[in-house]
């Protein structure tokens, strides 16, 4: 029973840890499917986290925090669009620039506004998104097997967690069942075909980037308003890049993306759980090695297990009308 509970706990934290990855990964899916590489997921999450925690602390409202996070993140996405769609700039350079601006500006503004060493004030109840307890969760908590699964894994998460997982089927539906999705996939493969069909390539790509901005904003808000009670500098800690890795691993498909992010989340959760506890056969392993494990496995998975991943063909190439 003890080991069963341990498993439940690891799975529970798997879910919690994979949510920001999943949101960022789906965000990247929108932009990359539309043919815009977005290495700036990291930066947009970071500004989202900072804006969300700041606004929530100042206005004492979680919802205003979330709205602000999304707004600022979308604004950064539009900057990326302005550079790479309107001015046909290099998408990688633009994305890296956004990451730098995000890392620097959040610390400077945080220090200037709150004078807490780059942190935002600790969020009070009501300024954070609280866990939602599903009906009957407390009642059946002690029922063996089903009880903990229901009470720990399904119930007891914040609204943003449910939102993230609901976005998976929703994104699939958008991509494959709507006009917008068809056009978005087309513009990532062959923008000239979209252009000659009488559709604006630029406007289509901007709309895809707005979707990206919304999702990275939510991902940021989750980090600073759910997982943590406020903003801490560099709190994204490379999640944006891992999300990109997961996106490639998932071959740009939403459902695959969910499993990829859950896998990365699980590795993270397992490494936290196993820290300090002796492993069978190997004995005690240094904590640093356990922490490095998810990253090591990321490299191995990407190098060896993914097979041929064909990215959207027009990805990274600005569209120039030519004769």
């Amino acid at each position, binding site marked *: 029973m003890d080991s069963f509970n341990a498993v439940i706990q690891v799975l529970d934290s798997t879910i919690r840890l994979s949510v920001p990855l999943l949101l960022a990964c789906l965000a990247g899916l929108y932009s990359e499917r539309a043919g815009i590489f977005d290495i700036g997921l990291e930066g947009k999450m970071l500004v989202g986290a900072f804006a969300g925690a700041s606004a929530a602390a100042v206005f004492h409202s979680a919802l205003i925090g979330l709205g602000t996070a999304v707004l600022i993140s979308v604004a950064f996405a539009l900057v990326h669009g302005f550079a790479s769609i309107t001015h046909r700039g290099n998408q990688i350079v633009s994305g890296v620039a956004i990451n730098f601006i995000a890392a620097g500006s959040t610390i400077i503004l945080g220090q200037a506004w709150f004078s807490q060493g780059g942190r935002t004030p600790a969020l009070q109840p009501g300024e954070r998104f609280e866990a939602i307890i599903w009906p009957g969760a407390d009642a059946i908590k002690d029922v063996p097997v089903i009880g903990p699964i229901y009470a720990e894994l399904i119930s007891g998460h914040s609204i943003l967690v449910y939102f993230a997982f609901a976005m998976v089927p929703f994104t699939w539906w958008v991509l494959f069942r709507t006009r917008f999705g068809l056009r978005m*996939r*087309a513009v990532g493969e062959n923008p000239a*075909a979209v252009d*000659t069909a009488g*559709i604006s390539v630029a406007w289509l790509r901007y709309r895809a980037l707005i979707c990206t901005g919304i999702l990275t904003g939510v991902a940021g808000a989750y980090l600073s308003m759910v997982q943590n009670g406020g903003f801490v500098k560099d709190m994204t800690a490379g999640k944006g890049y891992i999300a990109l890795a997961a996106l490639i691993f998932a071959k740009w498909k939403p459902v695959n993306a969910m499993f990829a992010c859950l896998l990365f989340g699980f590795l993270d959760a397992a490494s936290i759980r196993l820290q300090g506890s002796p492993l069978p056969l190997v004995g005690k392993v240094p904590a640093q090695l356990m922490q490095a494990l998810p990253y090591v496995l990321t490299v191995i998975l990407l190098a060896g297990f993914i097979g041929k991943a064909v990215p959207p063909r027009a990805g990274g190439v600005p569209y120039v009308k030519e004769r």
Partner: protein
Amino acid sequence: MAQAAIELIGINKSFGAVRANRDINLEVARGTIHGIVGENGAGKSTLMSILYGFYQADSGEIRVGGKPVSINTSNDAIALGIGMVHQHFMLVDNFTVLENVILGAENDALLKSSIAKARSELDRLEREYGLEVDPDAVIEELPVGLQQRVEILKALYRGAEILILDEPTGVLTPAEADHLFRILKQLKDQGKTIVLITHKLREIMAITDTVSVMRQGTIVATRVTKETTVGELAELMVGRRVLLRVEKGQSEAGAIRLSVRNLTVKDQRGVTMVDNVSFDVRGGEIVGIAGVAGNGQSELLEAISGIRHAVSGEVMLEGKPIDLTGKADPGELRDRGLAHVPEDRHHVGLVLAFEENENSILGYHDDERYLKGPFLDIDAIMADAKDKIEKYDIRPGNPRLKTANFSGGNQQKIVLAREMEQDPGVLIVGQPTRGVDVGAIEFIHKRLIAMRDQGKAVLVVSVELDEIRSLSDRILVMFAGRVVGERGPDATEGELGLLMAGVERQEAAE
């Protein structure tokens, strides 16, 4: 004459200093097939792009069905019933036929009803015009001819009454082209108007009702097809009489400079592509290798020029063997006097992103003439490039221009100039005039004959029978990897045609 479907009045369009279209007046009658011919760069595609809303004319008026219209985007053109089949297909390769057809013409925000509608529409179009294609097939798995059919279906699905086809047969096999023409005739019979852009005069004669000839951005003549001839059109296209057969004197064959003995080449799959081929090329003669594409000519060329592994046999260049393991050093072969103009200039002959002057020394860049110590001697390279530009009439004559910006014919001249000006003993040329316009063909043929007259050994491989017959002093015919016959330059087309088709006739050999 029937009512005009399209009228273009006084159309002008410039790209920077280049005037792509000058005072174009054109009228196309409803329910006819109108051809527009002209050399590469004559402004045909620009004109049609203006009609399709891809570009806007600087001045002039467009009338569709008698009414003046303004076409600012492709959407406007589509709404006016104009459809275009582009030279490079505008299809999403990993989409199905259905998805490609509905892209941009969806009913509403969800796809379900659009797909249902497209499915029944495609069914109807298939019955009416014989345009059968599996609606659920993925584009990249379809042969080129079918992909083009999807482009036509796209236009018809959007209600096109006027269909513009830009160089539609460039990528098609002869059989596919014939099928396309049958479809176009059927569309015409149903009252559609078709504008066909091409530089192949044979197609114009075969299918159009009327034809306009473009030269240097203007329409120089419009004719009723039945009342004109290929000769007249060709003359109008280049502005002077074309030598359809180049003048050349008797060859004076000298010593053997290239000798191929029992050469056998297999491809990656292990299929024998060149089967025990032997022949000699002497100084002062042009040997032409005729054959339907894919009968081993490409592999033969590659093996002789040392870039493809040969299973057995030997090739002697000026009496010394060539390394046939496929790992020969091309630089060393060049030093020994072998020049090679590859069949596929885009992938093998040129770096399109380089400037003209860089491509004109590519492969010879470590020659002392172009070096100053360890560095490239830019002045010498530029002078050399300018010299070649003048000699070979490469246009535009700007050695700093990116090679991709030259037309196909001029790109071919860049490669030819580079290889010929190295004064090689043996010149191997694959498809000397593929994609090259009429004026440049004549020039290239003359240069090849001049090489011959200087005592060089020239080996030409071409799928154009006319070209082989006009150039060669001896003609070898390849079929299924073997040389099935050798003929003189006076061999008839019919005789060679039979050999190329693999029909070995005793009488022909006698």
